[in-house]
């Protein structure tokens, strides 16, 4: 078992009166895919955005490589090597693949862009991820398919010396073949030694690529277990009821939002 690279301890997060995350403990390990599952509104995206510094957390501790850290912005998260692929992707349609991959971190001196350098690096990254579906890295994102966009968003996150990649439902809008490609990509990221968090509603996908499964139920961490120790049925029960046998929250019926 590898060392935890990112750990949450007792994280709480409210939006005004709505208490979305309750005392969340969560561990991401390098070289592993941790699946984060939970019903719609369980707080998965909020958790990811809290890690990324988009939403400030109310209480609790975040440890990165064993050290307590406070992350105020996506930029600071990126400085630690934490990258997020958001559910709503957030790519600039008018810009091409290279421009999107380097957006906010363009290469070049004195404010001038080094296009050739960026293009080469983008192509190298896509090749290292065995991405062959995009013809030219100068294609504008507007003309890419959903799967290709997802690929670009993921490739963008590993262009930097990233250590943790959080993927929020990367396959939700994809067809079978495209999902296949993205899952392969996810697996490859873990093989390259990154800590990967995959949010997904598809149990088959989760069981196929993940090493661990973390179940959120109404903003509480119901269980976090090695994938091989649980069954489909148990995970579904954890998602829908917060409890399965002796797994999960002791008295889920008392859990409130």
């Amino acid at each position, binding site marked *: 078992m590898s060392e935890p690279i990112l750990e949450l301890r007792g994280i709480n997060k409210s939006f005004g009166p709505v208490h979305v995350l309750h005392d969340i403990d969560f561990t991401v390990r390098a070289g592993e895919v941790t699946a984060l599952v939970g019903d719609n509104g369980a707080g998965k995206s909020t958790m990811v955005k809290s890690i990324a510094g988009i939403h400030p957390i109310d209480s609790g501790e975040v440890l990165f490589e064993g050290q307590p850290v406070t992350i105020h912005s996506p930029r600071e998260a990126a400085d630690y090597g934490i990258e997020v692929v958001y559910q709503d992707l*957030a790519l*600039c349609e*008018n*810009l091409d693949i290279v*421009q999107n991959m380097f957006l*906010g971190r363009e290469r070049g001196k004195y404010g001038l862009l080094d296009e050739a350098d960026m293009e080469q690096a983008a192509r190298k990254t896509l090749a290292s991820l065995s991405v062959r579906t995009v013809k030219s890295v100068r294609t504008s994102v507007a003309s890419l398919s959903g799967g290709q966009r997802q690929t670009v968003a993921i490739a963008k996150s590993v262009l930097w010396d990233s250590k943790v990649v959080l993927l929020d439902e990367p396959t939700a809008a994809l067809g079978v073949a495209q999902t296949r490609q993205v899952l392969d990509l996810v697996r490859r990221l873990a093989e390259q030694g990154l800590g990967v968090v995959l949010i997904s509603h598809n149990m088959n996908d989760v069981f196929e690529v993940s090493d661990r499964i973390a179940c959120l139920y109404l903003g509480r961490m119901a269980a976090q277990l090695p994938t091989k120790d649980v069954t489909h049925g148990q995970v579904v029960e954890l998602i829908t009821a917060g409890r399965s046998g002796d797994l999960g929250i002791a008295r889920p019926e008392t859990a409130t939002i």
Partner: protein
Amino acid sequence: MTPQRKSLAKRLVGTNTLWIALVLLLLIAVFGALRPDAVLTVFTLQTTLVETSVLLVLAVGMTFVIITSGIDLSVGSVLVFSGVTSAMTMNSLNGGDATNAGWGVVVVGLLVALASGAAWGLLNGLLIAKAKIPPLIVTLGSFGAALGAGQLISNGSNVSGVPNVLSNNLGTGTTFGVPNLVILAAVVTALGALLLGTTRFGRHTYAIGSNEEAARRVGIGVTRHLMAVYLLAGVLAGLAGFMAMAYFRVASVTGHDTDNLNAIAGVVLGGTSLFGGAGSIVGTIFGVFIPAVLRKGFVIVGVNVYWQPIAVAIVLVAAVWFDQSRRKARDRS
């Protein structure tokens, strides 16, 4: 993946610029064929260029603003305000009449014009980027306020006493046959094109217009950047005010009510999308010259000049319609 470098030319020109360049060439060719003796002369060329220089400088700033999916209606009024403050400062530095003032006074006048433009640009930027008031409303406000302020300061009349050294050199002087005003506009335009096409600042301008939230998430300082863009538009409007004053030998408080619309029309004609995220300075050059060539051409050929705004309107609406259907086609695919 095949290596496919995007050439510098392509990045500067943008995608839908080619056809608007063709429209411009076509216009020149048609007018030239009708009256070759009058149209294709150095004099006609020069006057068309000079008359368009001031508008071009406004349109360069406007291109940045529109690419961020904003708008700046205040440029013409800021031009007036900057001309007035600049002329009045120069006059007061020279005992009430700067006509015979030297270069020192002219330089102060330039700085005052730029600072006046910068002040309005900064105010626009603050209200738009920080207070998050829609650009249309903010700049509609400063459109009225800057003109009103200019007229208050000048008591509602044009300010004369513009230094001769300024008018004779920048205003009507030439270098190797090229009007100095045109050279200045060309330099500003070239710098604008490089800033937009080859720098981080330019790239972030496109990104914000394309997807502001995405720009924010990758750590681009969207608020600061938007302020800088409106500041740039303001400074260029200040410079345009200085140029207009040099050319007309008076800081005029009238005749600039539609500068904003002319600049916007030029930018949009040049292929910059009102939806933001796409456009180019090179396109803006073509876009600004189309109305100018139409006006000149109509005068020379003897068409009633009131046809010019109608013709421009048709081309403008066609340009936007073209942009929209291109987008729809893209979204469907």
